[in-house]
């Protein structure tokens, strides 16, 4: 007779492990704490869990929690609570505005916007844009750049294999750097303070 698998207790144990360690257990770890005799048994179990949507394979072929892993109830702390209070949930993780806007605090600078060349992108005169230095500009990014000696803020784009800078304002023509182009930094956020 095939062995009856107690999925309920297994998924509880996996969730607890994942919450504490921030990762899934390895095959041999599962073998130990779920009481399997071989890793083969574990792989059969995992196949079941994948079918149930509790685990899935990522691009690299590693198992990661699937869409149903978290379950209907949220995990608060290391035990499964009944109904989590909204306040408790809020405490779990919050970002300050600084953390939200700035990824690399050591490389971020403020630039005060003075022109209207990015107006169609919603960047107005007087706005403060946060600029990250030392970051590779990708097509579509807004960059602060020095073109032939002049500083400017534009969209960084590629046209026929050449770098061009486009304003978000029809009044301004496309800029094709003639002599030199220095990318000073990439705009990562825009801040406007009304009051």
């Amino acid at each position, binding site marked *: 007779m095939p062995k009856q698998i107690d999925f309920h207790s297994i998924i509880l144990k996996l969730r607890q492990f994942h919450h504490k360690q921030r990762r899934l257990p390895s095959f041999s770890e599962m073998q130990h704490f779920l009481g399997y005799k071989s890793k083969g048994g574990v792989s059969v179990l995992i196949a079941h869990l994948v079918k149930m949507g509790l685990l899935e394979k990522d691009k690299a072929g590693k198992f990661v929690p699937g869409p149903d892993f978290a379950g209907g109830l949220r995990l608060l702390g290391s035990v499964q609570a009944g109904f989590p209070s909204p306040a408790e949930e809020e405490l779990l993780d919050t970002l300050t505005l600084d953390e939200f806007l*700035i990824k*690399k*605090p*050591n*490389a*971020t*600078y*403020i*630039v*005060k*916007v*003075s*022109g209207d*060349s990015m107006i169609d992108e919603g960047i107005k005169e007087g706005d*403060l844009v*946060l*600029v990250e*230095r*030392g970051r590779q500009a990708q097509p579509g990014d807004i960059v*602060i750049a*020095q073109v032939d000696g002049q*500083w*400017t*803020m534009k969209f960084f784009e590629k046209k026929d294999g050449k770098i061009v800078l486009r304003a978000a304002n029809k009044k301004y023509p496309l800029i094709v750097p003639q002599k030199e182009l220095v990318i*000073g*930094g990439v705009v990562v956020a825009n801040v406007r*303070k009304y009051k």
Partner: protein
Amino acid sequence: MSANTNSPINLSSFPQPIVHIDCDAFFTSVEQALHPELKGKPVVTGKERGIVACASYEAKALGVKRPMRLWEAKKQLPQLICLPSDYETYSLYSKRMFSIIREFTPDVEEYSIDEAFANLSGLRRVYRTGYLEIAWKIKQRIQEELGLTVSVGLSASKILAKIASKYKKPDGFTVLRANELHQFLPGISLDQVCGFGPNTVALLMKKGVRNVWDYVSRSELWAKQLLGKIGIELWHELRGEAVYPIVTQEKTDYDSISKTKTFTPPSCDKDFVRAQLIRNTESAFIKLRRYKLRAKWVCIFLRGQDFRSWGTEAELDRSTCSTLEIAPIVNQLFEKIFRENVLCRLTGIVLSKIEPDKTVQYSLFDDVPKLQSYSAISRVIDEVSELYGKHKLHLGTSLWLTQHKQHVSERGDLPERKTDLIKGETFRQRLGIPIWSVTV
């Protein structure tokens, strides 16, 4: 006793991999990074002090040197750009530099505002590469993210790392392996060693020591007999045997604390000069209390128009950190040294014999309740400063300060950062992100 320059002292290249990172012309480089229009131009900072505090490499190339009066420099180089120092922004940059280095290793010493020592031992496994590449990576990261150049020296001790970083400047990267010292040190003169002052160099020259290699090839005993403890320490450091540790805690103990301030035009108004001195006293005591210290010895001095100083000192029978307790003493000392009708341009105070502010042993004749209320007042002063800015609550004497501005001439110019506030900022509180001044 001549040196054998063929055999290495050490067998390994980095017994302790110590790196020294030194910003090139720090203050002006920060200004040039934030104000791109200043790039490539001769710039100096220190306008508010009337001297060249820092000169950019462009200015140095045109003959501007560091201890130089500003008007002399300007006369020599009319196109020189003089900026008032913006210490707030410089310290932001300094913090960023240290935190970038700390991303690599926690073993970082903040040696000065623009210099750091770091120990890289054990990092090879993390980065899967050699010490040289790690040091290079640190340099690249700082330069990319701060937009200024640093000079880096990698060696086996702090003293050697500092020699290495100074070896090529600006934008230098010098690696000095401990097993190659015998090839490198003969070319290094004694005055390049941090720790050998002009007098020590003169003494060593007399003894026939012409360069650093000569010094380390003598015996340890010889170094001890000639220069004592410091002689031995340097002898080991220069041989690539690290003696000085990387001090990672912030510096909180001081041998002395001093506050001086110049004012222009010079004044012979007794009340005004006294107010200047009392203000310096207040500042010094705020610093004293910030580091939880007390001082037992105080010295005050004035400086005349001819740049000559005179002053006096007093030793207290008990150390103190209370402004109200010291003010009458400073006042008495001031009465002794103030000269009628002699113009003063600067006042200063030096506190010494400093000890930690722990328990106080009152003497039999001390008015204890009064002293305790003094320390309560000090606490209030510090709390008010915390909330509303330094010197918001001050002694009545310093009211005379409002008689005229600290500097009536253009020396009173403020750095752009202080005049161009962002909405929501106050004169005292500003965003902790440097403002890049480009017009876009």
